């Protein structure tokens, strides 16, 4: 018996490494590491009817305009991009204090209008600042109420809390129908 067992030859695994290396190189070449990230947007559904006249009072709307030269106009006055976030936060959390800004956070609207000639880079920056403003007020409110940031709330366990924060600060970011004024 012992002699027969000795007869089974050992499998040569020396080339196994070569095969594995080959596979490894294949995967290294054909794959990419980056996970896609982006700014999420919910587009409004299209409707055939002309938009009805806005019943919103002017003070509820924070008007943000970006022209073809990538300049920013907020509520009729020029503003630099680094001050846009603070301005939006002020608008959202005004609660009727400043007569030119919103009365309550639930009725506050941010209206973004851009030109066809605006650069995509500038648009993304502006959109980013507005999103940042919404995230900031939500974080602050959530921190105040529940001692936890909005982004750290668990979607399963803290469902009601998330709903509450969303109700307090609804994301009303409206984008105007496109216009063409500046050069393409």
């Amino acid at each position: 018996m012992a002699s027969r067992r000795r007869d089974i030859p050992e499998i040569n695994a020396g080339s196994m490494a070569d095969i594995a290396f080959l596979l490894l190189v294949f995967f290294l070449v054909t794959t990419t590491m980056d996970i896609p990230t982006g700014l999420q947007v919910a587009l409004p559904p299209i409707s055939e009817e002309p938009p009805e006249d806005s019943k919103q009072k002017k003070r509820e709307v924070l008007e943000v305009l970006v022209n073809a030269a990538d300049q920013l106009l907020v509520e009729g006055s020029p503003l630099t991009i680094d001050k846009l976030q603070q301005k939006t936060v002020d608008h959202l959390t005004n609660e009727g204090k400043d007569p030119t800004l919103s009365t309550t956070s639930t009725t506050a609207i941010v209206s973004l209008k851009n030109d066809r000639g605006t650069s995509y880079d500038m648009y993304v920056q502006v959109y980013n600042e507005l999103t940042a403003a919404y995230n900031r007020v939500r974080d602050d409110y959530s921190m105040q109420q529940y001692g936890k940031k909005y982004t750290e709330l668990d979607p399963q366990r803290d469902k009601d809390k998330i709903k509450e924060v969303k109700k307090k600060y609804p994301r009303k970011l409206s984008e105007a129908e496109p216009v063409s004024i500046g050069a393409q």
Partner: protein
Amino acid sequence: MSKFKKDGGRPTPAINTSALPDIVFMLLFFFMVATKMRDKEMKVQTQLPQATEVEKLEKKSRLHYIFVGPPLNESFGTTPRIQLDDAFATIDDIQQYITLKNNEKDEKEIPFMTTSLKADKTVKMGIVTDIKQELRKVNALKLSYTASKEVKD
């Protein structure tokens, strides 16, 4: 004579490499798990804008891709072009493309389909606005402006 020199003519034993495949396989599995397949050949240049509020896109299978940017091959000029899958396209092709892609998917998944718009920094908003309008027409309302995470310093 050196202290370390062996006096005998004994041959050096062969290094045991039987654990090498295990190590390589480990590396291989790491790369298989941590990466995704590159499945599209880029025809346009897309240098992404940077943003701080970016979110990770959940599932790769629930994404449509639209690329916009100046063609990489300069013989096609420098005007920004739209790329769908592996070919150049025009603004009118988008509706059909999204509809076709949606037909391949499970019906339950369609409301969750996100369009990932990969546009070059230098692209003007005119073309982006046109794409947005087309997407609204086919009811593909979830859009993501692909941007790389900006590192605050």
